[in-house]
C-alpha cells in the first residue's frame, strides 16, 4: 500500500486511503498486466485483447483518455494503459472482473440517460464524456447527489482511475508506462543514476557554513 509505505501519515486522509486499499488488494494482477503491456508495446503485431472485446477496448481507452488526457503532451492512450488493464482483468479475482463487466454497461446506460442521441461513451464529445464521468465519481461529490447513482458504476470508475494512474507512472522497465511517456510528462528523467546538482536551488549552493553560536538562547 503506497500511502502506508511512503507517506504513512496520509493514511488518515479518507480518499487516499480508500484508493490505496483498492490498489493494494489488486496489485498482484497488476504486475502481470504490466508485463503484458510491455510485450504488447514491444511487438509490431497488433496486440490481442484477452478480457475486453475490441469494441470494449475502444470504450476503455476513451475513458482512460479522459482520466489522463492527451494534449500537448502524451496521455493514457500513448502510454498503452488499456493493454495493461486488459491483462490485469484476466488475472483478477472474479468479483473484480465483475466490477468491469457490470461497470461498463452501467456507464453506457449513463451515457444514454444523459445524452440520448449517443449509444456509446466513445461517440460523445470530450466535454460530454467528462460530464458522464463526473456523474460517476463519488469522490468528488456529484455522484452522491445523482438520483440514479449506483455503487457498481462508481467503483468501476475508481478502479479505472487507479489503474490508469499506475499504468501511466510505473517504472517503464517493469512493464507499463510505454516508452516512459508518463515520466516525460511529470519531468522525471529516465535514468536511475544521478549526480548533484539535482535542481534549481542546489546548483549554486556555496557549501556548508557552520551555524552561528548562541544556540542555547534560541532554544524554545
Amino acid at each position, binding site marked *: 500500500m503506497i500511502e502506508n509505505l511512503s507517506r504513512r501519515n496520509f493514511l488518515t486522509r479518507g480518499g487516499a486511503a480508500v484508493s490505496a486499499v483498492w490498489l493494494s488488494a489488486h496489485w498482484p494482477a497488476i504486475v502481470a498486466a504490466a508485463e503484458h503491456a510491455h510485450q504488447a508495446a514491444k511487438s509490431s503485431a497488433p496486440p490481442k485483447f484477452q478480457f475486453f472485446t475490441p469494441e470494449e477496448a475502444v470504450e476503455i481507452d476513451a475513458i482512460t483518455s479522459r482520466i489522463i488526457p492527451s494534449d500537448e503532451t502524451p496521455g493514457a492512450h500513448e502510454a498503452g494503459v488499456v493493454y495493461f488493464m486488459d491483462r490485469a482483468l484476466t488475472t483478477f479475482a472474479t468479483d473484480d472482473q465483475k466490477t468491469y463487466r457490470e461497470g461498463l454497461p452501467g456507464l453506457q446506460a449513463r451515457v444514454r440517460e444523459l445524452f440520448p442521441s449517443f449509444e456509446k461513451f466513445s461517440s460523445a464529445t470530450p466535454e460530454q464524456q467528462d460530464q458522464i464521468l463526473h456523474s460517476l465519481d463519488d469522490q*468528488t461529490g456529484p455522484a452522491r447527489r445523482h438520483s440514479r447513482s449506483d455503487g457498481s458504476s462508481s467503483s468501476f470508475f475508481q478502479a479505472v482511475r487507479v489503474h490508469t494512474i499506475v499504468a501511466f507512472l510505473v517504472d517503464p522497465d517493469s512493464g507499463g508506462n510505454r516508452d516512459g511517456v508518463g515520466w516525460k510528462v511529470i519531468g522525471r528523467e529516465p535514468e536511475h543514476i544521478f549526480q548533484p546538482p539535482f535542481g534549481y536551488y542546489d546548483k549554486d549552493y556555496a557549501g556548508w557554513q557552520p551555524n552561528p553560536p548562541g544556540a542555547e538562547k534560541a532554544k524554545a
Partner: protein
Amino acid sequence: MKFDLPKYKTSDEVDFVVVGSGAAGGIMAKELSSNGFRVVVLEQGPYLTEADFVHDEVKVIGQDLLTNKPKLQPTSFRKTPNEKAKPQRAVLYGRCVGGTSVHFTANFWRFHEIDFIERSKVGPVPGADLRDWPITYADLEPYYTKVEWEIGVSGLAGASPFDPPRSKPYPMPPLPVKSSGVIFERAARKLGWHPFPAPMAILSQPRAGRSACINCGFCLAFGCEVGAKSSSLATAIRTAEKTGRCEIRPNSYVHRIEMDSNGRVTGAVYFDEKRNTHLQKAKAVVVCANGAETPRLLLLSANKQFPNGLANSSGVVGKYLMLNSGGVTNAVFEHPLNDYKGFAVSRLLHDFYELDPQKVGFYGGGGIDARFDATPVAFAMGGLPPGTPAWGKAFKDTLAHNFTRTMELFCHGTSLAVETNSFSLDPDLKDAWGLPALCLTYKDHPDDLKLWAFQNQRANELLDAAEAQKKWSQPIGESQFAVHLLGTCRMGNDLKTSVINSDHRTHDVKNLFLCDGSSLVTSGRGQPTMTIEALSFRAADRITALAKRGEIA
C-alpha cells in the same frame, strides 16, 4: 558473494537462536558469532539480495515484496481496550533478511541525554507512565560510535549545536545537499534556527566493498540495489556469515519458544516454507522480532508457568506501545527542485528537540527534516495539494507541474508511554497459519497531538520564510497505523513495570533475551533505528560477558 555457511541441524543445541534478522537481529548475530558462539538466525521472510531490488512500485510497494503480507498476516485495530477491534491493515514492518533496515529512510540520529532521563527532568505526566531508562546516554555512547563506524553512517559531527557529546567524528562526510535541503537551510537560518546535514545510514563514499549512493531516487520503501544503504543485510549479516559460525535460515516463522520444567527456554519452534514444524534447540534465545512480533511471540508462548505469556509475570508484555507522533507539511516552489533524485533527507533541525513543558504547555519535543520521499505512482496518489481534481486535465497539469517542484517537511516527535496502547492477540482473527493475529490498540496521548500541532506551526513558519508558492499540512489526527514499534517489552529495574533488565535479559527467564524496538523506555524524537542498533551492540556485549562467566547455561 558466497561463503561456506554452517548448516546446523535443528537437534544441534547451538549457543544462541536469534529470532529476526533486522536492525537488532542482524547486529546481534554478527556480534555473537564474531565472539565465538554458534548462532542460528530464524527469519520469517525470504532471503533477498541486491539483484531482487527493482524499482517497480507495483512489485515492491503494491505486492509488499519487502514487508509483512496483509493477506497472510491480517491485523486489527481499536482505539481502546473496551472496543471490539476491527480487521484492518494496522502495522508495517520489514519481512525479509535485513528486516525494516532494508527499506527504511535511513535517518540515523542518536538519542540525546534527555531521552534517557526525562522523567527525572520533567516529572510525571498525567495519563502516561513516563520513566527514566536504567541506562544513560553515556552508557550507550560507545555503541552509537560503533554503529556509525561498523555499519556506515554519513554525517557532520558538531554541525548541530544540540548534538550530544560524541567520542569520534562520523566515518564519512554527509551526503550531497538536495534542493529541499538548501531551501530548508536558508529559511531556517532566517528564523534564527540551526539546520544541519542529516546523519544518514547511506554511504557517501565507497566503503568495505560497498558502493556509495548513486542517487537513484527509489530509496524509502525500496531495497538498495548497490548496497549503499547500510541495512543489516548489506552489513552485519554478511559479516556474521563470514565468521563460519552463523546460519541465516530464511522463511522460518517462529511461533513458540519452548521451556523446560526448570524454567529455562530450550529453543524456538517454527514453520518452514512448507509449513512443517521444527524445533531449533539452543542454550539461549534472543528475540529481535520487532516491537510488534516480539511481544506477540511471548504471548503465543504462554505455558503452565506463564499462563499470560512467556516472561510476562509483570503483565506488561505488549503494553506501553509508542509510535512516534508527527506529520507532513508539503510545499511547492517556483523552480524545479528535482528532489526525486537521491535519498530522501539532506537537512534537519533539532531546535525543538527539548521543549520546556512549562512554556509550551505540553510534554515532548522533536525534529523537523526536509525531504522528498515519493516515487511517481505514490506521488500521484497522495502528493498533490488538497482540492486538486483526481483525474482529467487539471489533475494531469498539476501532476506535471508539481512533481519536480514539491518538497516535504517531516515533523518527528515523542510519543508518551500509555499502558492501554498495546499489541495483543486478537481473540478471533487468525493468520494464514491459524495463529492469533496482531491487534493494535492505540489512542494518542493528548500531548503527542499538541506537539504535532506545535511542530506543524514551525514547519509553516519555515515555509513562509522560504517563500513557498503553496503549502499544506496533513490534518492532525489520531494514529491507527503503526510503523515505529516501540516500548512493548521495555527495559527497567522494576519487575512489575518492565520486561527486561539493562542486560536485555527477561526478568523471568534466565536464558531468554529481548532486543529491538520493544526494549525502548521512551520513544526518542522519531528516529529509533540508530538507538535500536546501538542497544543491540551493547546487549551483545552484555550477553557475551554473561555467557563467558557461565551465567546463562
